[in-house]
């Protein structure tokens, strides 16, 4: 019974290359039965396709906008086409000194967000690290989180006047409570094993805070800041609607008075572009700060 089986493996080495060649040639045919579909759960998309798909979405959006704006025959001043918006944008920068408005807005965002971070990061870390500190601040912070920042505009106008201080204060109020709560939650995620490891190695409370709790939650804190900076941009127009002479929002309110819809849309585009740049900058900082999280 065994005899016919034994000789068969012997000639195999000579046959093997031929088999390999055949299988190589057949491989595309062999692969085809596996259906490759566009929409598949968790199926990664190549970088090239990702870029192409992203550009396609924008082109379709602009095309749709253009067709909708020009379909009526004559140009509608309340609904300008993308071409006239880009003309308006060029005009704003080239002839009407729009860059000083952009800089004023950018400065307000950066100062207010910087101040919010300076207060929220230490407070959030202490609240997340020590339940007693959380128990003290949490009821206060949670309550303030539900008060809409724009509701404070009349108070801020009376207390701080109509200058930059009032706008910076409003932008700060808009994000600081969320920053504190989100950072506190991030810090609470620090694995208890990390803290106990440090304690058994002789770590004091101070050194555990600085060498375990802070580095362990820092990536989450930077990510929270990135997301809350986007919220800060959404408050910008509200801050600059009232009693402002410069800034992107003030320009848009002036344009509304003269029904310059193309200028308003140009303002929206600039806010979007600046927000995107801030987001990219934060991603770059994240990449530089946390080399151990790259390419996981």
């Amino acid at each position, binding site marked *: 019974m065994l005899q016919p089986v034994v000789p068969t493996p012997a000639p195999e080495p000579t046959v093997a290359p031929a088999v390999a060649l055949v299988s190589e040639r057949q491989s595309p045919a062999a692969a085809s039965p596996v259906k490759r579909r566009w929409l598949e759960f968790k199926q990664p998309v190549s970088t090239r396709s990702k870029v192409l798909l992203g550009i396609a979405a924008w082109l379709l959006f602009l095309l749709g906008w253009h067709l909708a704006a020009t379909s009526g025959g004559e140009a509608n001043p309340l609904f300008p086409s993308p071409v006239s918006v880009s003309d308006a944008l060029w005009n704003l920068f080239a002839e009407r000194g729009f860059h000083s408005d952009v800089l004023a807005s950018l400065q307000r965002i950066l100062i207010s967000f910087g101040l919010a971070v300076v207060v929220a990061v230490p407070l959030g870390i202490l609240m997340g690290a020590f339940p007693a500190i959380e128990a003290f601040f949490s009821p206060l912070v949670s309550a303030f989180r539900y008060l809409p920042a724009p509701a404070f505009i009349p108070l801020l106008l009376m207390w701080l006047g109509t200058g930059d201080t009032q706008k910076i204060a409003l932008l700060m109020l808009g994000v600081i409570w969320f920053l504190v709560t989100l950072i506190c939650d991030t810090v609470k995620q620090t*694995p208890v094993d990390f803290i106990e*490891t440090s304690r*058994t*190695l*002789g770590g*004091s409370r101070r050194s555990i805070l600085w060498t375990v709790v802070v580095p362990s939650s*820092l990536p989450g804190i930077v990510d929270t800041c990135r997301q809350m900076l986007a919220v800060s941009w959404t408050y910008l127009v509200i801050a600059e609607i009232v009693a402002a002479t410069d800034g992107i929002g003030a320009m848009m309110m002036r344009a509304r008075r003269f029904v310059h819809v193309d200028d308003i849309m140009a303002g929206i585009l600039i806010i979007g572009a600046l927000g995107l740049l801030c987001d990219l900058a934060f991603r770059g900082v994240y990449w530089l700060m946390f080399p*151990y999280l790259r390419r996981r």
Partner: protein
Amino acid sequence: MSAALPALHSGLAVERLGKIFPRRDASVIAVENVSFQVEPRQVCILLGPSGCGKSTVLRMIAGLEHPSSGHINLNGNPVTGPARERGMVFQGYTSFPWLTVRENVAYGLRINGDVNAMREGTVDYYLDRVGLSRFADAWPHQLSGGMRQRVALARALATSPQLLLMDEPFGALDAETRWQMQELLLSVIRKERMTVVMVTHDVEEALLLGDQIVFLSSHPGRVRTILHPPFKADDAICTREALRSHPDYAGMERDILAMMHEEGSRH
């Protein structure tokens, strides 16, 4: 109280240790009247079925839990909280992901004020002891589970603790890696002449590494028996194969497994 203890000035003494976890309806007695001693340079294994409170005993020795009754003395000093003289290796992976392997091993020295930890040979020595010299600059997430536990072991050893505590350190590893790690640990313990208390539920691990096995019964955890396997003292036994071919091994393993089975089915 400590005057009433027998005059034991070196090694670990655990005296009538008890731990009660208060609950709203009924308090849970996790550990009751546990006493044992560990001589310097001896390895003590806490063995028992799950739920016997062996990890709780270890955490009390580490100072991470406060005993409800009894006391713990190390080299004549009472244990009141965690300290670097009692280094611990946990079951989960505790390598800090934001530090390289070398920085992880240096961590204990650094937080104790030794800013030159990297330049001195200590860190490199322990990296070499656990066979990670080639991976000194890698990030923990690039390492396998066994390698991460070797980082944790080197980190705990680098601060030269008087007592090394290990809470099922190889429990999360696959069987093959676990044997390698047990053999590595055995050679490190022998070379460094460490005093060790280790929790496990792996009978083979207990027999390979222990000079003394404290067998705990479950619900509540009490000392059922204390065994003294001869294998770790015998320097000829340094692999799993050598352990298994020892004439006394099979009998001891059978007895312990029988006790484990009895405790496991006892409620």
